[in-house]
C-alpha cells in the first residue's frame, strides 16, 4: 500500500491565503503534501485515493484556544442543565426546561443507584434561566432524605445540597458564616456559595474532582473534541503535578489520540523562577500531540459572578467590585518575570480593570525586555473597550474573546451585570478585527459546551438565549468567525505554522463537515453536521454518527 493518501471531498476550505478552495488533499506521514484538485496533488508518487468523504466538506481541524480537559471528566456525573448537551459518547442530555424537571431527572438517577452511601453528584444547574427561582432542600429532599445529594452550578462556583448533607455538615439555622444562603424564616436553603461552606459539604461527601486530571478524563476529552470537530485544544489551567504530567503523557501518546493538547501551566501557585524551571523541564515531554509552552495567569473572577474587576462605573446593579486572585503588583511582577524568561502568557481577564492592569503589565515588561512576536493573549477579555483594543494592537497583544457568553449570559449582562450599553460591546470581535488585534473565540468548556462552530455562530449572530441581538455592531462575518476558530486561535497558541490551515507541511488535521458553512444562512452555522475529524491523516468519527466507517 502506498504511503500517500489523497482525500477527495465535495469541497475543501483551506483557510490558506493562496488557494481558498480545493477538492483534494494529499497526505504523507501525517502531514499535508499538497492541496488543490487531483491533478495538482497527485504528482508526489503512488497514492491511494480515499473518497469516503467525497460528499463532505473539509476544513482545517478547529482550534479551541480556551477550554479545559475537565470537560471529559464532568461526564462521570449526570448533567441537569437548562440547555441540551451532548456527552463524549454522543448521548444527548436534554435540557431541563424548569426546576422540577431537573429534580425529576435526579429522582430517576437516584433510583438506579445501588449503594445507598454513595453521594449523588450532578452538574450544570443554573437558576438564572428560571427567573432566578432557587433550588432548595425542599427540591433536593424529594430526591433523597438519606443519601447525600450535591449539585454543582454551571458557573462552577455554587453548590446546592439536600438536608442530609446539611445535617452531616452540621449546618443549621444557627450557622452564621458567609455563603450559607438562608430563606425568609432563617433556615439554610442548601445553596452554598463561599469556599468555607463548600468545604464543609465536601468534608462529608468527598470532593468529586479531588486529584486533578486523569488519563480517562483526557481520553473522554479527546472524544468530545472529535465530536466538536476540534483537533487542537488547550487545557488552559494545568497543575503540572507528577500525576497530571503522567496523565498527559499516557493519554496523548496512545496510538490514535485525536487531539493536539496544550496544557497551560498555572503560574499563581509558585514563585516565577520555579515555574519557569518547571516549564523548561517538562518541555522534554512535548510531542506532536502534546505541547508544553503556555503559561496561565488568573487575575480576576467572572462577570456573572460579580467577581470580575471592573473600572468605573462598576456593576449595573450596584454590586461591589470583584476580586483579584493575587495583588495587581504581584500579577505585574509575574508578567515581568515570565516575559523576561521568554514565556508565552495567557491571562484570564474578565473585567476591564483586569484587562487594563494586564495591558499595563505587558507594556512595562516590553519596555524592560523588548520582544517581538510575544503573542501574550488576554483570555475572555470580555469588557475591554476600544481604547484597550488600540493599545493591544500597538503592543502586539492577542485576545481570545468569550463569544459563547453572548448566548449563555447575554440577557443577564444586559439586564443585571453591565446594563444595555456596555453589554452591547462585550466580547467585541468586530472591534478587535477593526483594530487589527489577532483574536480567537472560545467556549471555556466545561463552562459552556465545547463546539467551535457554535462559538462561531455566537460571534456572527450575537443572539442571546432569549433570541435578542446583543450589540449588532460587534457581529462579525462567517469568514472572520471561521478564521477565528482555525488560524486565529492557532496564532494565539503559536501553532499557526503547524495547524489552522490546510497547506503543505502542516499537520493533516481536518474537520469533516456535512455542509459548507459559507454557503448556508449564517444563523444555521451551529446546526451544520460534524462527521468527525482527521488528525494526522487518521479519521475519527464523532460519537453517534453511523455514516462512513472509519
Amino acid at each position, binding site marked *: 500500500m502506498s504511503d500517500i493518501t489523497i482525500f477527495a471531498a465535495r469541497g475543501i476550505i483551506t483557510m490558506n491565503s493562496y488557494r481558498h478552495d480545493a477538492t483534494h488533499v494529499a497526505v504523507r506521514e501525517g502531514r499535508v503534501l499538497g492541496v488543490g484538485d487531483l491533478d495538482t496533488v497527485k504528482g508526489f508518487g503512488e497514492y491511494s485515493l480515499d473518497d469516503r468523504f467525497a460528499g463532505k466538506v473539509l476544513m482545517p481541524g478547529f482550534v479551541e484556544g480556551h477550554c479545559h480537559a475537565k470537560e471529559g471528566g464532568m461526564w462521570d456525573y449526570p448533567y441537569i442543565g437548562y440547555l441540551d448537551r451532548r456527552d463524549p459518547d454522543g448521548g444527548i442530555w436534554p435540557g431541563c426546561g424548569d426546576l422540577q424537571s431537573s429534580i425529576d431527572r435526579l429522582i430517576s438517577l437516584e433510583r438506579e443507584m445501588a449503594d445507598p452511601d454513595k453521594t449523588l453528584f450532578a452538574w450544570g444547574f443554573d437558576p438564572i434561566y428560571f427567573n432566578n427561582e432557587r433550588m432548595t432542600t425542599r427540591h433536593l429532599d424529594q430526591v433523597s432524605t438519606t443519601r447525600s445529594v450535591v449539585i454543582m452550578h454551571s458557573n462552577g462556583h455554587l453548590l446546592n445540597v439536600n438536608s442530609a448533607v446539611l445535617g*452531616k455538615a452540621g449546618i443549621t439555622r444557627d*450557622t452564621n*458564616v458567609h*455563603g450559607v444562603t438562608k430563606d425568609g424564616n432563617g433556615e439554610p436553603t442548601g445553596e452554598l456559595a463561599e469556599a468555607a461552606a463548600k468545604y464543609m459539604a465536601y468534608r462529608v461527601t468527598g470532593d468529586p474532582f479531588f486529584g486533578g486530571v486523569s488519563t480517562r478524563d483526557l481520553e473522554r476529552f479527546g472524544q468530545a473534541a472529535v465530536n466538536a470537530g476540534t483537533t487542537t485544544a488547550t487545557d488552559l489551567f494545568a497543575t503540572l503535578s507528577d500525576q497530571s504530567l503522567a496523565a498527559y503523557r499516557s493519554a496523548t501518546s496512545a496510538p490514535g489520540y485525536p487531539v493536539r493538547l496544550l496544557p497551560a501551566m498555572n503560574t499563581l501557585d*509558585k*514563585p516565577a523562577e520555579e515555574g519557569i524551571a518547571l516549564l523548561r523541564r517538562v518541555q522534554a515531554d512535548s510531542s506532536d500531540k502534546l505541547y508544553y509552552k503556555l503559561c496561565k495567569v488568573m487575575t480576576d473572577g467572572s462577570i456573572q459572578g460579580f467577581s470580575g474587576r471592573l473600572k468605573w462605573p462598576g456593576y449595573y446593579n450596584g454590586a461591589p467590585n470583584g476580586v*483579584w486572585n*493575587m495583588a495587581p503588583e504581584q500579577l505585574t511582577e509575574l508578567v515581568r518575570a515570565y516575559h523576561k524568561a521568554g514565556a508565552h502568557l495567557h491571562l484570564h481577564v474578565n473585567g476591564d480593570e483586569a484587562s487594563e492592569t494586564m495591558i499595563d503589565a505587558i507594556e512595562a515588561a516590553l519596555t524592560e525586555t523588548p520582544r517581538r512576536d510575544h503573542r501574550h493573549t488576554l483570555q475572555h477579555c470580555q469588557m475591554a473597550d476600544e481604547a484597550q483594543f488600540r493599545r493591544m494592537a500597538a503592543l502586539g497583544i492577542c485576545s481570545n474573546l468569550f463569544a459563547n457568553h453572548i448566548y449563555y449570559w447575554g440577557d443577564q449582562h444586559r439586564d443585571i451585570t453591565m446594563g444595555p450599553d456596555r453589554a452591547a460591546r462585550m466580547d467585541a470581535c468586530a472591534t478587535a478585527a477593526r483594530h487589527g488585534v489577532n483574536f480567537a473565540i472560545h467556549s471555556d468548556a466545561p463552562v459552556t459546551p465545547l463546539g467551535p462552530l457554535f462559538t462561531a455562530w455566537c460571534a456572527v449572530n450575537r443572539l442571546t438565549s432569549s433570541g435578542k441581538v446583543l450589540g449588532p455592531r460587534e457581529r462579525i462575518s462567517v469568514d472572520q468567525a471561521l478564521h477565528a476558530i482555525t488560524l486565529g486561535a492557532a496564532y494565539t497558541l503559536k501553532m499557526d505554522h503547524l495547524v489552522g490551515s490546510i497547506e503543505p507541511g502542516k499537520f493533516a488535521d481536518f474537520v469533516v463537515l456535512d455542509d459548507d458553512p459559507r454557503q448556508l444562512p449564517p444563523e444555521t452555522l451551529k446546526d451544520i453536521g460534524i462527521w468527525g475529524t482527521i488528525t494526522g491523516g487518521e479519521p475519527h468519527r464523532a460519537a453517534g454518527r453511523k455514516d462512513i466507517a472509519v
Partner: protein
Amino acid sequence: MTEGIEPQRTEPKPFTVIGGFLGAGKTTLLNRVLAGARGPRYAVLVNDFGALAIDEALISAHDGQTIALANGCICCSMSDGFITAMLTLMQAPERFDHVLIEASGVSEPDRIMDFARLDPLLSPDAILVLVDAETLTARMSDPKVGEVVATQIRTADILVLNKTDLVSRETTETVETSLRSLNPTAPVLRSAKGDVPLNVVLGTGLHVTGDSRDRDHHDHHLHHAEEFFDTRTFTAAEPLDRDAFVRFAEALPASIIRGKGVLVFADAPGRAEIWQRVGARMEMMSRLEGSAPDQSSLILIATEAIEGTGLAQIMEAG
C-alpha cells in the same frame, strides 16, 4: 466519608488566620513561628513554600505538598487550592495542635475564618491582621486594592502595626488613627520586624487547666519593643456567680488582648466552661458534664498592668 464528621475525641484545634496586604510581614512572622516552635505542633498553610526560610536541617520529610519539620510542625502548600489543602489537612487531624493560615494579600481573612466556624474539629482562635506602617496610607487610596485592605483591617481581632521602626512617630500615629477608625475594637500592637510576642498573637502559653496542683505557669511581665505585656493568672476556689462574671468580662478594659478561663459556675457546678477573649471578641463554650475542675482559673494578657490577686477580688473590683 458518608457518615458525617467523625465524633469528637479531642478538643477542637485552634485556627488562626494571619492576614494583611503584601509586605506587611506575614512570612517573617511565620518563619519565626516555625523556627521557634516548642510545644504546640503548628500546621501552617502557605501560598507557596518559596518564601519560607526553613532550615534544611529541620526538615524531616517533604512530599511535594507538605513539609514535616523535626519540631512537629507541618507546612502545607495551598497550590492545589485552599479547599483541597484543607480537605487534605483534615484527613489527619492528629498530626497537629493548631492551624495557622497565611492568607493571601488580597483575601478576606474573615471568610477564611468561616472554615473554623463550620468545622467542629476546628475552633476559631483569632484573625490577626498585619499592617505595613510604611505603605498603608498609599494602599488605602489605591482604587484597585484599597477596599480589600480596609476589609482586612475591619475584620481583624488583633492588629499588628508593623515596621514602625521605618517611619516617623507621626506617621505611626497617623496610621494607627486610620486603623482605629476602621476597627475601633481590635487592639493595635506596634512592632518592628514582626517581633510581636508569639504568646500574645497566637495565644500560646494560655494553658489553664483549672487544676490547683498545676503550677506550670508563672505570671510575668514582658517588655517587648514598644509594648508592655502583663500576663496574670487568677483563681477562685468557690464556684462563680454567672451574672457577676459576665458583667466583669464585658467591662474588661481594651488593654486585655487575650484571655482564657476554665470556669465553674454556681448554677452549673458539675461542668467546666471555657471562656475565651481575643481582642474585643469573647465567647463561652461548655465542656462535658462531670469534667469540672476543683477551681476556676483565668489567665489574661494585657498591654497594661493588671491589678489584683484572686479572681473573686478582681471580679468585685471590676
